[in-house]
């Protein structure tokens, strides 16, 4: 079994008196595609923020081995900056490393972005912005990429294209992926393993096939037990 790149154990996150995450555990191993599914307000983004160190947990352990790149919820562009500048800033943590700010490698992987390099990020379509967010995450030269809501607000075709890019990055570069999604079908199709987060707790975990076939997920997220869903 490959070593973990993200290891979360007994994580507790509170906002004032409200508990957003209650003793959550989660592991992503090198080269693995892992889904975290759950409804709005389950605590998914709190988990992301804790993993990236933006949020200080009340208790528990978060270990990030290697670098993580984030594709944040809502894409979070630097609207006034160009695509090129958005990408370059993705390398901030490694800014002193030689060639770290060179965006050419991103244009190699995501050639659509090369034509947009001089455009203001705020003027792009949602799908294009999500692509920039991908590129920006790659600029961190990450071992693992955390995608917070891949499909939110995007057309199905655009989402499918982005999912294909994720699959390719994983297959060709061994990039580990933690995919946070409300769209359970998309997440479980793409990932080998997954977790279900509800009201701040992990309610189920297992292989994508088991989760898709299990009663909790099938009923709550997939509209009943769809025949053959999750068989890969």
């Amino acid at each position, binding site marked *: 079994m490959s070593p973990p790149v993200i290891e979360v154990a007994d994580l507790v996150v509170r906002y004032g008196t409200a508990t957003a995450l209650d003793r959550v555990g989660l592991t992503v191993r090198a080269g693995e595609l892992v889904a975290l599914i759950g409804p709005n307000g389950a605590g998914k983004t709190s988990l992301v923020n804790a993993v990236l160190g*933006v949020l200080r947990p009340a208790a528990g352990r978060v270990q990030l081995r290697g670098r993580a790149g984030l594709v944040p919820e809502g894409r979070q*562009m*630097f609207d006034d*900056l160009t695509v090129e*500048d958005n990408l370059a*800033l*993705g390398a*901030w943590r490694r800014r002193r490393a030689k060639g770290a700010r060179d965006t050419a490698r991103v244009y190699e992987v995501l050639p659509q972005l090369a034509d947009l390099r001089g455009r203001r990020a705020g003027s792009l379509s949602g799908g294009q912005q999500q692509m920039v967010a991908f590129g920006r995450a790659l600029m961190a030269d990450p071992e693992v990429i955390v995608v917070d809501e891949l499909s939110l607000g995007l057309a199905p075709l655009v989402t499918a294209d982005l999912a294909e890019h994720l699959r390719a990055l994983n297959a060709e570069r061994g990039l580990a992926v933690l995919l946070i999604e409300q769209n359970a079908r998309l997440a479980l199709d793409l990932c080998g393993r997954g977790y279900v987060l509800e009201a701040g707790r992990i309610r189920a975990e297992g292989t994508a096939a088991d989760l898709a076939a299990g009663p909790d997920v099938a009923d709550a997220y997939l509209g009943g037990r769809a025949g053959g869903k999750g068989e890969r």
Partner: protein
Amino acid sequence: MSAFLQYLVSGIAVGCGFALLASGLVAIHRVTRVVNFAQGMFAVVGGMAAGSLLSAGLPHGAAEAAAVAVAGAIGLAVGIAATGKRGTSPQSALIVTLGVGFLAYAVEIMIWGDSPRSHAGLGGAVTLFGAHVQKQSFLVIGVAAAVFALLALFFGRTYTGKALSACASNPYAARTMGIDPVRMGLVAFALGGMLGGLAGVLLTPLQPISYNSDVLLITNGFAAAVLGGLNRPVVALAGALTLGIAEAMVAGYGEASYQTVVALALMLAIMMVRASRRTALQEEAAR
């Protein structure tokens, strides 16, 4: 005609001073969302410090540069006091900057006394189409133009400048990438301190300053900056030049004691017209 030209050039010079001050306000507000009411104090400290350093025997150039550096350091200190503690709201930070401004009065009076002070700038005047224009005015305009060009390069071309813009644009995204908005805010405060200090250093030879000159300076700088919503440096520059020229004209052709009132009334009128136009446009867009 010659009098007009004289007022125009000196108005542009004073406007450049306001613009430097205003660009400091804008830089700080963009990154931290804090309206820095201590901005005028940076100019007073810069102007006073330059005078003291010149009296102490430092040559021109070195004294002025050192005074700007002092103002930058004070800008950093104000930034630490106002925003250094994580999670401080921009509103609380604003109150801190206001408090620091008042504290500075006491310190300034202790060091420099309470009477207006000035120092020699670039002496002499040149005759231009029959108008006598102080050389210092041209120096102010030249230095301000160079500084604005440098600022544009800094924000548009350097990695740190882009990171500052990134914090202004989306602090959450900046944080997830490891860009620390608090530290970037301190960079902005130091920059604002230097810009304010430079304004004081350049303007003091034209008009003597005292500890409470900051009120006049911040009023003009704020009026200029707010014209661009505190976020647009180029609009702030245009506003500052308008103010400077309007004040010089009022003082020249009318009554000097009305200059600020008239200039600020003009700015208010411009803002009201712009605001109503924007509303009309928004209504149009909503249709």
